[in-house]
């Protein structure tokens, strides 16, 4: 395998809940105590994105998939771990040094209603990034580039003088994609780009993203909770649970032979047309709070195969015969 385009190593992100020093001190049982709490959004994620692929990250709400996306893009700084792009560490770059990577990495956001500046016309929205990253370009050059991206996402050139609020959600998402493409990125992080759209529009936008991938040789890190989209779009899939990757496999392999008990439960929940007697795997209880993480495997409290070792020891990602990487003691021991 060639070296990956983006690699995420041992990434952790905690959000502090306890505030400043004064707010941390509590009086309990006759003694002053300092109490520190944090949400453990990501707890040691290792992922590698290969050039040209679409790596999908799936998981339920609050499992940390959006936090991974934001940390990769530098919107959040990691509490621990490293992010490398093309072999170069980028999570500690600041200001001017990070600019080349800003151009190569772009992001598409979830909510098209908030991701366009309401006081800027479409023309201005697309023009600003181009002029910012290519200060030496002439006006006709900038105009040609704008026309090229507008054309490639299928938006009318006449829309340039209008404002974002004059468009529908799907149109806005196209404009947001055009803005990301305007700086000729290599790598795009898409944070649930279609979940806020109408079902009829979702396919259009998805196809647009796939066309762009083909014609521009893009690499995607695609965050979603929609398994149908994953099957259609993803080269590989990473399943996350409570801030950890529990299974990572090729899309076909994962849907055909899910190994991790959580993935199995997740896939069994997909409704099927011919299913008159559904056979969902029912998980007991709820997702534990990310403030107090369970010891050992984060899934052990709800896993039907959990044993003593699962409660004690954090499972590492191991590669199985099928090429699937899975973090589960039961799979490793051959119990499952």
């Amino acid at each position, binding site marked *: 395998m060639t070296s990956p385009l983006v690699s995420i190593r041992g990434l952790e992100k905690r959000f502090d809940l306890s505030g400043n020093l004064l707010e941390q001190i509590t009086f309990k049982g006759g003694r002053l105590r300092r109490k520190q709490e944090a949400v453990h959004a990501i707890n040691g994620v290792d992922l590698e994105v290969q050039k040209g692929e679409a790596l999908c990250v799936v998981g339920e709400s609050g499992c940390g998939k959006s936090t991974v996306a934001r940390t990769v893009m530098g*919107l959040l700084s990691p509490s621990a771990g490293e992010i490398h792009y093309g072999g170069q560490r980028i999570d500690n770059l600041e200001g001017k040094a990070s*600019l080349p990577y800003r151009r190569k990495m772009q*992001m598409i*956001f979830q909510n098209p209603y*908030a991701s366009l500046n*309401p*006081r800027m016309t479409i023309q201005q929205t697309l023009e600003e990034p181009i002029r910012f990253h290519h200060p030496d370009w002439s006006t006709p050059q900038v105009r040609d580039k704008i026309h090229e991206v507008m054309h490639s996402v299928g938006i009318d050139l006449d829309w340039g003088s209008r404002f974002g609020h004059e468009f529908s959600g799907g149109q806005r998402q196209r404009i947001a994609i055009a*803005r990301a493409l305007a*700086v000729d990125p290599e790598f795009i992080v898409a944070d649930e780009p279609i979940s806020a759209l109408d079902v009829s529009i979702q396919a259009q936008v998805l196809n647009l993203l796939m066309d762009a991938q083909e014609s521009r040789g893009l690499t995607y890190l695609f965050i979603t909770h929609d398994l149908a989209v994953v099957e259609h779009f993803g080269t590989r899939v990473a399943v996350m649970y409570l801030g950890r990757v529990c299974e990572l496999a090729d899309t076909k392999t994962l849907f055909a032979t899910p190994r991790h008990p959580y993935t199995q439960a997740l896939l069994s929940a997909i409704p099927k047309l011919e299913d008159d007697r559904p056979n969902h795997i029912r998980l007991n209880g709820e997702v534990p709070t990310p403030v107090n993480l369970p010891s050992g495997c984060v899934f052990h409290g709800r896993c039907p195969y959990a044993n003593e070792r699962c409660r004690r020891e954090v499972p590492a990602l191991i590669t199985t015969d099928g090429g699937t990487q899975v973090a589960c003691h039961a799979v490793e021991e051959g119990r499952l």
Partner: protein
Amino acid sequence: MTTATVSRWDRFRESFVWYSFKRDKVAIISFLVLLLMVLAAIFAPLLAPANPYDLAQINIMNSEMPPVGLDGADPAFPLGTDAQGRDLLSTILYGTRVSLMIGFGAVLLQAVLGILFGLMAGYLGGKVDAILMRIADVQLSFSTLMVAIIVGAVFKASFGNLMFGEIAIYMLIFIIGIAEWPQIARTVRASVLAEKKKEYVEAARVMGFGTRRIMFRHILPNTLSPIFVIATVQIANAIISEAALSFLGLGMPETQPSLGSLIKSGFDYIQSGSWWITLIPGLVLVVLVLVINLLGDWLRDVMNPRLYKG
């Protein structure tokens, strides 16, 4: 290019602001009265029958003449004269000019300081936010007038009366501007906190734009509507503050009277029958502040989307 090219004027005429303005009689009347007063103040040198700053035109023999329609009135002085023999109409026109200049100037200074500090506190957060907002709290805990009186008194004592008269207008703009900036800073900070979480700001950060560009080109335009509302009300407040200071003798000198110092200069004669020297400038001041406040109220209702449907 048919429907796509709409001029700014067309856009404004189709906007909710214009629609609600057309239907609001109070707003229309207030706006017209304010426009009239602002124009009268701007063109005071052309409109006024006399120049109250020119000592050669003042005759002490004309002092305390009543307005036209009362016994002893002179048609040359339609609103009468003050205790120094100045034509009251001209003095009021010039005084309105001074009051409006101080009002707008002080609010301009407040807006510059308030927007700058509010944006910094809201967007940068953390220690910058804590320090700037504590300064604002300290400043707000003193009353504007108290600060202004102390500063004004110190300046007056150190520059002497003559020098103070020359710089008084800038002094008042400075004092009132400095004393009231936290009002605007807090409003700006609150709307920046709401705006900076939106995805278009994150999109700008992902593009690699610098902090300053994001603050001024992306966030500031989206926080302007509350600034407009606050600024309108603050103009009225600044004019009132100036009048109060002048009434206490710490504002504009009698040689270049504002509305406040005119009221004060007539106040000594109100018991001796020359009520017009105080009453007429007082009425002008009340009307001026009232129309600005009414416009501010209307603007607040328009800019608040929650009140759209009434």
